């Protein structure tokens, strides 16, 4: 376990910035938090968002024995890109810039791994461009996952009801579907 290097930090923040607005600065330096600051730590190829005191305690565990700590944000691929995991949803959802609200009839298809169709959309954020990260929520504002917008909002309006509005990236159904592999390192 170690802190991130400069290039790794940049790659991570670029990915986070596709889903979040300016609110992600609160991830590093939250003025409201009274406890100690949160830090990013990399263990093997996975990046964790963890309290600093906990990270300091974890230094007493040897690298091979340390399975996980804090919240896993995602992993670095072997090509050096960063892939967000569904476990990061609770961290990025409060700072999301673009959102799509799914009607109750569209919740289950989405949680089974499907894309978001226009017929299932209850609301969406205005002025969302194409291929921009969006957070998917149900009508009672519970985050269900995140994805990438297939069309801009203006284009999506003209789309037929079966057309895809958002491509799925991760959803909370993965906690069940990927139960065996989600937390293995």
């Amino acid at each position, binding site marked *: 376990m*170690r*802190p*991130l*290097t*400069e290039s790794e*930090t*940049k790659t991570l*923040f*670029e990915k986070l*910035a*596709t889903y979040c607005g*300016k609110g*992600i*600065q609160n991830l*590093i*330096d939250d003025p409201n938090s009274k406890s100690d*600051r949160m*830090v990013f730590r990399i263990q093997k190829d996975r990046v964790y968002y963890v309290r600093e005191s906990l990270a300091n305690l974890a230094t007493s565990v040897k690298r091979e024995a340390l399975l996980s700590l804090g919240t896993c944000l995602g992993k670095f691929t072997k090509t050096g890109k960063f892939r967000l995991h569904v476990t990061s949803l609770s961290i990025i959802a409060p700072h999301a810039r673009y959102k799509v609200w799914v009607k109750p009839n569209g919740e289950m298809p989405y949680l089974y791994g499907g894309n978001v169709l226009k017929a299932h959309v209850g609301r969406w954020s205005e*002025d969302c*461009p*194409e*291929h*921009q990260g969006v957070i998917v929520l149900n009508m009672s504002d519970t985050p269900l996952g995140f994805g990438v917008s297939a069309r*801009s909002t*203006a*284009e999506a309006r003209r789309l037929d009801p079966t057309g895809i509005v958002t491509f799925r990236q991760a959803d909370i159904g993965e906690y069940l579907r990927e139960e065996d592999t989600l937390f293995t390192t």
Partner: protein
Amino acid sequence: MAPSKPSHKGKPGGKLGSAAKKPSGSKPKGSAPTGISKRQQKSQTLLKPGGAQKTKSKPVNNGRKKKRVYTEAELDIPKLNSIIPAGIAKPKGQKKGKIFVDDAESMIAIMSVVNAEKEGQVESKIMRARQLEEVREAKRKEAEKRSAEKEKKFEERKQGLKKKRSKQSDKSEFDDVENEAPQKDKKSKKRVSFG
């Protein structure tokens, strides 16, 4: 002890005496049969391994001036011209290994750079989408206008045709009244039947 000393002394003395006699006698003997002059003898001694080195180095040093060896700094070669292997080009005193970013300030600095970049990208995307939307809207309006014009022309043409027809029908009504009888005659006349 006393007898040994003189005997010891005497031996070398005797030897010396004989030796002093022998070389004086033998030298002229040796030189005379061969007939080598003093100069030739010297040159012969040069061929011997011991003597050769002594005499060889001397004439070389005396004949030519010793070449000056320049150091690289003295030559004043431009730096780009010298070879610096790629792996060794690192500046001195630099820390080895990874440089971690763990303090909030530098992380915020990186984040603000990344945010600015992303913001620019999103803005440009939105702008492009708006422009495309405007172009599409303009095209749609033009197409609507064109179709409306076409419709209007069609309607006009239709109306024109209707009017023409109504005029023609009026005329034909009058004609019918006048030409009813002769038409029947004509038809009966033209009829042809076979078999």
